[in-house]
């Protein structure tokens, strides 16, 4: 075999391996989607969105309380996490060289790696025990704590991508440092930051562990923030663990709704980014 044809063969083999790895990586995703959709779709109907869970032994019913609960919990989480996450991202990008910034960065990375069950136990200690009450608030706090490091790190990275000349332009017009950051640098990075926030949302919407000790669960519909509240993930977990075939079907439907929410979030993030970027030409 000539030298070049050997090299061509090796190259083709290499490309082939890469393609194969991509396929292998995609297989689990495809299988998950296939099972969730094919199993979930059977029990998915209007009642699933509008009805409350049926009592044990009775067929039908829905997860209206859990769907609303998940929306409330993620909204609460964002209310806690978005301002704190973005502001600490601003701090670490602005004062990147300082010790405090390195400490914050390290803390954020560590927090990101803390198992979610530990965060649940922690919030149980500070927000459930003192009030002797599981609550949506505590659940939102737990989710928020998980979102903060993701948002903070994304914000920092995106702010650092904004060219320094942009900031100098603002300073040269008589802007203070804070003004330059908040009126020019941050808006310039906003599309990316929005994407980061939505992806963080998608990530925590699927969390179960931090909710078990905080928001707990609720068989009834509630929007009260000081009461235990249902969520899709906990409901799916409970139903999937039950011995009833009907509840298993409901759990699949719940899983499908969850996956759809995450999917919609990702699509929304992409669209929002594209929109904003198109607006700036």
């Amino acid at each position: 075999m000539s030298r070049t044809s050997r090299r061509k063969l090796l190259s083709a083999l290499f490309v082939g391996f890469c393609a194969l790895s991509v396929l292998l990586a995609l297989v689990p995703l495809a299988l998950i989607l296939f099972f969730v959709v094919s199993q979930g779709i059977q029990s998915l109907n209007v009642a699933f969105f509008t009805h409350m869970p049926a009592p044990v032994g009775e067929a039908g019913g829905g997860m209206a309380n859990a769907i609303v609960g998940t929306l409330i919990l993620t909204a609460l989480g964002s209310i806690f996490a978005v301002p704190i996450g973005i502001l600490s991202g601003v701090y670490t990008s602005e004062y990147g060289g300082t010790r405090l910034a390195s400490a914050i960065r390290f803390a954020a990375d560590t927090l990101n790696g803390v198992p979610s069950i530990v965060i649940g136990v922690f919030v149980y200690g500070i927000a459930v025990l003192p009030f002797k009450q599981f609550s949506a608030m505590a659940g939102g706090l737990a989710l928020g704590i998980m979102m903060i490091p993701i948002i903070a790190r994304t914000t920092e990275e995106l702010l650092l991508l904004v060219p320094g000349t942009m900031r100098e332009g603002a300073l040269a017009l008589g802007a203070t440092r804070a003004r330059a950051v908040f009126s020019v640098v941050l808006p310039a990075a906003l599309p990316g930051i929005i994407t980061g926030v939505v992806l963080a949302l998608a990530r925590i919407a699927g969390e179960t562990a931090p909710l078990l000790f905080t928001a707990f669960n609720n068989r009834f519909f509630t929007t009260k923030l000081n009461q235990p509240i249902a969520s899709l993930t906990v409901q799916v977990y409970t139903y999937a663990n039950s011995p009833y075939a009907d509840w298993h079907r409901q759990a699949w439907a719940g899983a499908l709704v969850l996956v759809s929410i995450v999917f919609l979030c990702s699509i929304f993030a992409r669209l929002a980014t594209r929109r904003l970027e198109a607006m700036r030409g």
Partner: protein
Amino acid sequence: MLLNAEAAKAGQPRAPGADSPAPARESVVPNPESDPKIAVAGLNFYYGPNRVLDGVTLKIHPNQVTALIGPSGCGKSTFLRSLNRMNDIVPGTRVEGSILIDGQDIYAPSVDVVDLRRRVGMVFQKSNPFPKSIFENVAYGLRINRMTRSREELGGRVEASLKAAALWDEVRDRLHASALSLSGGQQQRLCIARALAVEPEILLMDEPASALDPIATQRIEELVYQLKDRYTIVIVTHNMQQAARVSDVTAFFWLGKLIESDLTNKIFTAPAEKLTEDYVTGRFG
């Protein structure tokens, strides 16, 4: 080149480098008695341990265009950026000597840097419009400095600034379009309009036309020429013809030192220093 230098020595008004004609206009002789707008004395500038400006002393007179020339890395940008204290934001820098604007030391502790930067506007080498609309770009400085009282006044000032920067006719119908949709030359004029809007007294321009084509460059040069009636302009340029065309006074920097500054005509025809002559005739740099 050699011929050129000979011609220059003979005192013939001959532009350096190419076949371009002599500087088109007579430089206005600054009255040495009059107070300078900017008086720099014994300026040393350090990035960490590196001294990049070495004892620069220069007077810049009002309503004149002063061109800074010199080889790459000689400290032109550093000098320019020390005039509005833009270097303050670079960590580890240090300044010695004094810079007086209207007789006031701009590095004095009592000076408000934010106010100084409003009075000393700056246009950057690479145009840097904000990712906002054309209107908002020009309105930005007016808003942050609270310089207008009403919506109408704001609109009027924006229009006047765009006109002063010779951009109004091209953008009047799309003021609310993104500034990033403008061409490179238009973006640079937008940055000039943005700087003019806050009514600075001094305009610093760091190679404002280096990224532009000849036509856009010409528009910027015409603009600089018009603006000097109202502003004191300091412009960095690598283009000898440009320096010859737009400036009244030229200052030649070399390795952090100010070698010579004089009327532009004189610098290009009969410089006092051999180094200056070698540079403007293109023998090095």
